[in-house]
């Protein structure tokens, strides 16, 4: 493993999307030649806050939903740093939605990562804004109802429509093929920031076996076979990259 990650095994449940994404992120950053001195991370609340204990470069804990605002202040004061935000769907698609949209509107030169596991896992498995219709959570025991709770928010589609967004892609971690796509997407997201082309956004679909009530293998299959129909992977926005 690279020098950017120092906890193994990671402090996550078996089959969690966070642990896969942490390893992938460390590999991508190392392959791009970035060192800890060049990087600066901001994480939100919930399970994603454990990333500060896993990756070795500096991390700031943001107030709930305000990771992008805090990262904006860092980037404006230290423009030579590569600043990434790391949030779950509960933090980013809930309280953090206005900060995300305004950072995108301002064209902040940031890399935004969202691990979307379709529940608010950090607080015990409640419904999040991205929870798919019919999905059972602690606060939707009969499944999410469209009439009561509305339809799930599709983050990447939303972000891709905003101006000054350079790159918006949704990837998944349920198969080798998709993990390779995720690796490429993460690389591109940092290169867009390095080029100063605007906000780059990567939504990573991951599993949360405990709060989906499944084994890790069942959760992986459910993600690939069912849940990605609502949140289909793909590149939703991509401006021409300056090489």
């Amino acid at each position: 493993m690279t020098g950017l990650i120092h906890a193994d095994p990671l402090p996550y449940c078996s089959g969690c999307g966070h642990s896969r994404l942490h390893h992938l992120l460390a590999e991508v950053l190392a392959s791009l030649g970035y060192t800890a001195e060049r990087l600066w991370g901001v994480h939100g609340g919930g399970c994603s806050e454990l990333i500060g204990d896993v990756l070795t470069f500096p991390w700031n804990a943001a107030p709930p939903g305000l990771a992008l605002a805090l990262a904006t202040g860092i980037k404006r004061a230290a423009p030579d740093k590569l600043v990434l935000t790391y949030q779950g769907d509960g933090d980013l698609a809930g309280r953090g939605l206005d900060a995300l949209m305004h950072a995108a509107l301002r064209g902040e030169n940031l890399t935004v990562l969202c691990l979307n596991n379709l529940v608010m896992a950090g607080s015990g498995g409640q419904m999040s804004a991205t929870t798919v219709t019919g999905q059972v959570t602690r606060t939707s025991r009969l499944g999410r109802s469209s009439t009561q709770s509305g339809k799930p928010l599709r983050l990447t589609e939303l972000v891709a429509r905003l101006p000054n967004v350079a790159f918006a892609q949704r990837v998944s971690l349920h198969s080798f093929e998709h993990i390779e796509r995720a690796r490429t997407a993460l690389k591109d997201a940092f290169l867009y920031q390095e080029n100063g082309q605007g906000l780059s956004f990567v939504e990573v679909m991951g599993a949360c076996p405990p709060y989906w009530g499944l084994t890790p293998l069942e959760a992986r299959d459910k993600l690939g076979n069912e849940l990605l129909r609502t949140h289909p992977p793909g590149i939703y926005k991509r401006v021409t990259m300056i090489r």
Partner: protein
Amino acid sequence: MLKYTPRFLSGAQLCIEAALQAGCRYFYATPSPSQAGLLNEGAWRMREAHGTFIQAESPAAALAMAMGSAAAGAYPLVSASSHDYLAMMEALSYAQHQALPLLILLVLDAPWGNQSASERLVTLPLQAFPCWVPDSLVTLPSLLRRAFGHMRQQPGPAILALDPWVLQAQSTLLPEVLDGEEQPPLRIHLPEQPLRRWLAVGAPAGWLLERAPADWAIASLQQLSPLPVASLSQFAADGSVSVFEYGTPALSTYLQPYCPFPLVPVVVPQPEGWIDNIEQVLRGLNEVVL
């Protein structure tokens, strides 16, 4: 050059100038009525000084941006009204926990009919954070610089609590440019015996100041702006003070018990053509009141 000549600055302008002289180059805020003057001034002065200003989407976002800049080694500035301050409490606890040095210009206001809440707010920041309360424009620049100096010694949020009357009063600022690297001190001269005094609320206030500048004026430029009635007792007046207001003399009636000097209501009719009416009021003002 304007820089070397005496200037007529409002309290908001003075805050920004003093922050720039203290080395601040990062200013984040979101507009709200009583502290909008700080944004209006800071938005262009920060950029003129090669600094950064972002009009944030919410008070908490403004504070989070300041936290980010503070984490990167800067000494940022955030302005807030009382309501903004309450909205940023959650983020402020994070800033305190992470010992991030940032200065909040807190304008202690409250909406109409909520004066008691305003008075309670006065003591709130004093208990939690280092807090300075300038009592006039004379002490404002030095206290603001002292706040920045304190943050360098003891990192963490600090507050400069501003009475809106101080913020919106006007005075002259005489920068004295010295040779060498020493920063020019700010000297402020308030006329001891002002020739003309105004107490005006709402749009007429700004309009009045533009048309006939007073030697010393207090103008509450927004209808929603605060009226910290307790501070009215600090002002002494030899004669009567005119109060401009729309429609009815409700404001002067409300304020009179708190004022040690007589208030003369000058009621401005609100229907169409009100600017003409203000001109009539001004003419009458020159002849009768002042």
